[in-house]
């Protein structure tokens, strides 16, 4: 017997502890909610209060899910650090040396969104980043979130809803 399609809803209550389990100790999530079709994650990372707004973009072949980091906002209880942040954006907001042609490094500014995408992807198996889009490998995701049926298909839809995540997996 083959499972040809599975559409299911996973509530935020179920996702919350699982997400926290896969985060480093320095990051705490305080709230997850949906604002329209975007997901808002509110938490604290190394004393920085952050809010991430994430939208989805499913890949056509269903092998991976693209999560677009739409917006990142940061605040710190200590205002002096905010000043440092303004003067030292490389450290706090992200920038990278992209080439060293002629022995000189040139800086390419990257957005906070790109910086965060890269940070999340680094060291996380099955997650990669391209610009401000995070790509989650479907197989890895299914291993991290075991389903009540053995499904080896492709993700054909993935959406954030008020109650949680709704996704469809289809037979390949």
């Amino acid at each position, binding site marked *: *017997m*083959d*499972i*040809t*399609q*599975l*559409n*299911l*809803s*996973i*509530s935020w209550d*179920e996702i919350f502890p699982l997400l926290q389990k896969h985060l480093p100790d320095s990051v705490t999530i305080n709230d997850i909610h949906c604002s329209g079709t975007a997901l808002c994650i509110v938490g604290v990372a190394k004393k920085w209060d952050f809010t991430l707004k994430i939208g989805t973009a499913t890949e056509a072949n269903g092998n991976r899910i693209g999560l677009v980091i739409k917006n990142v906002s940061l605040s710190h209880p200590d205002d002096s650090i905010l000043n440092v942040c303004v003067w030292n954006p490389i450290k706090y907001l992200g920038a990278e040396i992209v080439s060293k042609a002629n022995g000189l490094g040139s800086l390419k500014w990257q957005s906070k969104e790109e910086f965060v995408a890269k940070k999340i992807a680094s060291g996380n198996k099955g997650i990669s980043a391209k610009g401000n889009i995070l790509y989650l490998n479907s197989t890895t995701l299914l291993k991290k979130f075991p*389903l*009540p*049926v*053995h499904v080896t298909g492709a993700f054909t839809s993935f959406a954030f809803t008020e109650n949680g995540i*709704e996704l*469809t997996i289809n037979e390949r």
Partner: protein
Amino acid sequence: MEINKLAFRITPDDLGALGDIIMKKVAPALQKLPATLRELRDLQLRIDGETLEIGITLPEVLPPIPETELRAGIALAASSDGDALLVELLSISAWDMETEVFNPFIMDKIGGAVQKYPGIGIDDLGRLRIDLDETLEMLSLPCELSVTGRLLNVSVDEEGIGFEIGKKPRKKTAANC
């Protein structure tokens, strides 16, 4: 985690095992048949285009009528309320009997037999009506799924028998109307 929709397919390779399950299920009913018919065996399920064909070996009923294979072509459908699987007898052949005479006779016999079984009955159009719970139990889903939904669709093609089960719509109440 809530299953909103589940679609699965019983492949032609699974049909042998399903035939065995059905035979075990109907074994007690066979004991109530006339002695000569209790030896029904070798239930085979085959797919012929968009029709499911059931073949079963009939014993030698009377000396002039030899052991033979009864073949029945059946169509499967979901009931309009999604609560049951409908089984319609399209054709039947054995001993070269006239279909027009034989079909109502067989359905009448089946109807009489199944009425004793909870979850199985005959609808107004003479189709066998098997409750979804009963159907799923018979199919023995290979997963720890508790499907309490409604049958959205059943299809038969060369790839197998496809089932689509969806979540039961919530009953409207004054609060959410």
